[in-house]
């Protein structure tokens, strides 16, 4: 199906990659930690190393949670579009195949939030 319109209907996407000044957008949610209401959005250069993405940007975004200090990045399980994903931490986002507007989630085994309530 498609839009039914009175006349030709063809408009560009508001969020295509070319509109982000060289950055790509990635979303990251932390499983079992709903203290953060929704996954976070990041706009960042594709050549950012995955290690720095985790250890600088994610740590900063999630720092309010007491579990954040306990994250062992080596045992973290990653999901991309809901499917298991194994990024190489020493490579960049682009080298890991991360695309514009990809949705990532990570699970930290053993950490289940405030009083194990998934918060």
């Amino acid at each position, binding site marked *: 199906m498609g839009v039914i319109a009175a006349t030709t*209907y063809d408009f560009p996407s508001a969020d295509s990659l070319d509109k982000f000044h060289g950055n790509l957008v990635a979303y990251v949610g932390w499983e079992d930690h709903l203290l953060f209401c929704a996954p*976070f959005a990041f706009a960042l250069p594709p050549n950012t190393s995955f290690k720095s993405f985790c250890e600088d940007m994610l740590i900063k975004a999630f720092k309010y949670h007491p579990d954040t200090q306990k994250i062992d990045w080596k045992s973290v399980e990653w999901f991309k579009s809901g499917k298991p994903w194994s990024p190489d931490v020493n490579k960049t986002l682009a080298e890991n195949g991360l695309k514009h507007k990809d949705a990532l989630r990570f699970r930290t085994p053993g950490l289940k939030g*405030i009083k194990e309530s998934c918060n």
Partner: protein
Amino acid sequence: MDMKVKKKLGLKERYSIMTRDLGWDTTFQPMDKVFPYDKFEGIKIHDWDKWEDPFRLTMESYWKYQAEKERKLYAIIDAFNQNNGHLNVTDARYINTIKLFLNGVSPLEYMAHRGFAHVGRQLTGVGARVACQMQSIDEIRHIQTQIHSMSNYNKFYNGFHDFTHMHSRLWYLSVPRSFFDDAITAGPFEYMVAIGFAFEYVLTNLLFVPFISGAAYNGDMGAATFGFSAQSDEARHMTLGLECIKFMLEQDPDNLPIVQGWIDKWTWRGTRVLMLVGTMMDYMLPKRVMSWKEAWEIYFEENGGALFKDLARYGIKVPKCAETATIEKEHITHQTWAALYQYGAATNFHTWIPSPEEMDWLSEKYPNTFDKYYRPRLEYWAEETKKGNRFYTETLPQLCQVCQVPMFFTEPSDPTKICCRESDYKEEKFHFCSDHCKEIFDNEPEKYIQAWLPTHQVFQGNCFPEGADPSAPDFDPLAELLKYYHFNVGRDNMDFEGSEDQKNFAAWRDISVKN
């Protein structure tokens, strides 16, 4: 000599002369060229004369009724303002519900006014056009009376000063705004189903009844009165929406699947907007009327159920989303308040943690969910706040491409997992909060790829004031964003505890009750 006096016209005749007889068929140009926009959606109308006018109201009597209501309304507003009625509300937190209403809902009245004016020009049938004209006038009256009723608060409290500017810019206001933008850019029949039926008929009671009784319960006679003044119009609007649905279904069997698709879509779109009202009921009213869950049960499950039973004879089914919405009724207000609370640096009203008694009320009203899923986070935030560590998130949230709500809804089958759906369209990924938003996108991707999503707009650099330089070393994106929003930082936003509103209200109330 006896004068021959003509008999006065009967109501019916008068009505017909003053409404339908005002229309005519054009002869210089074919009617199809004069009314080119009511066929492309695929709705087939064979006889516009079959349109039953839900209210046999002429413009003349319309003005009379409305003028009478205006007189009463303004008398009460004047009395309320002159007697410092704002100091009689339950507590200053209540005023934040008024801010939410003025910023989030009143501009929708204006959009409804524009929408009905537009559709009134597009439909060929004169009966439908007269009805749209009256509703269009009603809607502009509603926003006017709302602005007048609430303007008194603007003299004393923060967050009211620039609602038209904020409505089209603020992150959370993109939810109601995009809802109406979506409706007004549809064809005339879809607009009638979206606003006339799904919003005005199926969902309006969930908006007006809780809000207005909430105002009355909390001592706000100003807001309660504009609500009552609008209520009799709402009854007329509901009837128009229903008449329009029945008319389409009676005109041609081919109309049924199109109408059903619109009902499915717009009931869901409306439900997503109403979570703001639900959150107000559960979290923002100091004296609560009923829970969102109870309101949903009465006004959607019972009343809506009866309506759909009535429509079943035309082949209309209960919208598919009703099942999901019924599961979500125990969750969405807690999830919404949590989001508003943590992004409270970027809301133009105050947020807070409910008191222990209020949390007990929530436990009682939500026995299956509150203690298990939501109390732990609120109590944790309360403890941290005591230590001086009030939670404010600065990282922007991922948004749903269709309803534009941050992706905070959980899986219908698992309240500990965020519900994420996605679609690929022309090699770009799009994300949704639910199966229903995804379905809406998949049906019309060309439309929703244009969505103005606040998170992405900030990243693109479109939400900073003129002259801001994002490449400057000391560039502070949040500060610049709040400038672009026209916030009085520290006065409009942040926690209620310690706010200027809280202090002023306490001081003024003190003066009004003591020597």
